[in-house]
């Protein structure tokens, strides 16, 4: 026991300690929105820089390292040169130019969606199979991707290189590669988003993969991401994909959706509307100059959300409102064939995202 002279001090300190969580809970000096460390573009630049190359597999954020982990699991241990700085690959496969009004899939996939949705594990992807728009493209673009372990044709290490390829998981980049079913990677998305609630790619990609196991959990996961990142367009896009997928499961022919499918479509509409609001905000905040630095993925996400909001409004909402929405989006983005079609305008020429992709290719050329 403290001495009598020190007892008051001891009591005061004890009381303050008991009440300290009330102070500690309110102190959040590192809970701020934005910030360069959380910016997807800055992350991509860091990872692509010579410093990033120097660090090799070490990425500048733990969440990126965990994203690489998911890629390893998906490729059964074979290490491809990852590009975790692609903030959202979900909408690559769902780059909508037409809404699913019939038995055709929304995404114009060269690789059929059914091979994945039937849950076939460890299936082969032949070399003729295009991954340019396929759903396996969703985690990262492995079309023509190089392996981390150097191939035999370019390896100067001789016997050491041969031994390395024999001992470590390796497959020649030109051969057909395999994807695992994807169940094993799900916990990693949980961990990466728990450790970094602002890791948008984790929520977007994780929700897409989770939908195969439990769509309701996938939606809840996406909602959690939206709650922490209300301006993350890619998460809206991913959630929309999950809802559309569920709608298609309930009613394969969405030209005449049943009641349950319609409920999913209405939820998707609400989701895309929120996403469209975020797109409009970011579009105006960025300005023409800011949008010049948008990556092609940001363009894809933004255009996908705007198009889906307009198309679904026409499908399950008010057609006149859909026309007005499409026209307002067109006024925002300039020109887009899909939005023009919804707006009832006759417009030809490349879409905004095509223009963005061309611009990026020219700049990197």
């Amino acid at each position: 026991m403290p001495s009598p002279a020190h007892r008051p001090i001891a009591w005061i300190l004890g009381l303050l300690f008991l009440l300290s969580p009330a102070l500690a809970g309110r102190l959040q000096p590192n809970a701020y929105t934005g910030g360069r460390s959380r910016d997807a573009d800055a992350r991509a630049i860091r990872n692509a820089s010579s410093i990033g190359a120097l660090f090799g597999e070490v990425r500048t954020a733990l969440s990126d390292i965990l994203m690489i982990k998911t890629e390893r699991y998906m490729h059964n241990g074979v290490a491809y040169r990852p590009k975790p700085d692609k903030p959202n690959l979900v909408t690559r496969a769902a780059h909508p130019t037409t809404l699913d009004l019939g038995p055709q899939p929304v995404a114009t996939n060269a690789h059929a969606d059914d091979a994945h949705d039937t849950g076939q594990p460890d299936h082969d992807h032949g070399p003729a199979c295009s991954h340019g728009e396929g759903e396996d493209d969703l985690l990262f673009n492995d079309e023509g991707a190089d392996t981390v372990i150097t191939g035999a044709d370019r390896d100067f290490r001789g016997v050491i290189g041969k031994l390395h390829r024999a001992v470590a998981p390796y497959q020649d980049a030109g051969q057909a590669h395999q994807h695992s079913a994807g169940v094993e990677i799900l916990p990693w998305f949980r961990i990466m988003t728990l450790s970094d609630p602002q890791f948008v790619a984790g929520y977007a990609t994780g929700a897409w993969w989770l939908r195969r196991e439990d769509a309701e959990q996938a939606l809840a996961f996406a909602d959690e991401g939206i709650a922490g990142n209300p301006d993350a367009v890619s998460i809206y896009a991913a959630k929309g994909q999950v809802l559309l997928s569920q709608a298609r499961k309930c009613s394969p022919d969405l030209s005449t959706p049943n009641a349950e499918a319609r409920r999913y479509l209405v939820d998707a509409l609400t989701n895309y509307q929120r996403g469209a609001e975020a797109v409009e905000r970011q579009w105006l905040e960025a300005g023409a100059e800011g949008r010049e630095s948008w990556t092609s993925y940001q363009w894809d996400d933004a255009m996908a959300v705007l198009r889906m909001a307009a198309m679904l409004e026409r499908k399950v909402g008010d057609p006149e409102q859909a026309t007005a929405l499409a026209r307002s989006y067109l006024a925002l983005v300039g020109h887009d064939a899909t939005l023009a079609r919804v707006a009832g305008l006759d417009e030809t020429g490349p879409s905004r995202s095509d223009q963005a992709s061309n611009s990026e290719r020219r700049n990197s050329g």
Partner: protein
Amino acid sequence: MKDATKVTPLRAGVLIGKGVLIELQRRKDLYVLVFLMSLFLVSVLVARIIGIQEPATATFLLNLGMSLAVYAAHLLTLLLALRQMPDEIEHRTLYPLLAKPVGRATLVVAKWAACAACGTAAVGVLLLLGGLPVPRLEAYATGTLLQTLVCLPISLSMLAALALCLSLILPRGTAAVVAGGLFFGSGALIGLAGRVADSGLPGTLLAWTALYLPDFGKLNLVTRYTDGIPPLGPAAFGGLLLYGALCTALYLAVAAALFQRRSV
């Protein structure tokens, strides 16, 4: 005539502090950390020669350098503070000190102050090595930098007090693991408890209890600075300082109480 044997608490503290400093110099921990930071300095200089084109890369290097300096200084302080009391007891150098007479509480506070001061000096040196050579290609808030520099000694003091307290309860190795774990992991544990706890009473209690863990991350504003975020408002900053001071006072009080009761 002055009584040469009488030692005022202040003088005792200064002498004890000198002893801690001499021990730090002898142990060479600081030199190892300076060497490691020098390696980082060399890599930054190489990067500058090659050319750092992107501001994002420069900001990353700045954050990396400053973070390394902060963690290294905390590690140094932790190891220094953990050794103080056990070494004095083991080597039996404690008895002459206590016979001076130097009060037990005075000894604990003096050790703590010396460890905190050494850590503060170390973080200053390491920040110069880790932060100064990196080019500033983006805008950063000076106010946030000042707040960062103010919070660092508070954090070091808190860690020194915690380490002293744990060294009196646990064996040295265990104390090191626990203190290190709390320094690096308590923030994540608190966040996890807050996120996984449901809204019911058990969840609330879990989240509340987790907040008793010392969260050193709150006093580390390096990322806030490199993110270009403006400084904290007076209330928030004052709250941080109060939090650090409260935790430090508490750990010191417990350490002093433990040492008072300990038979040596």
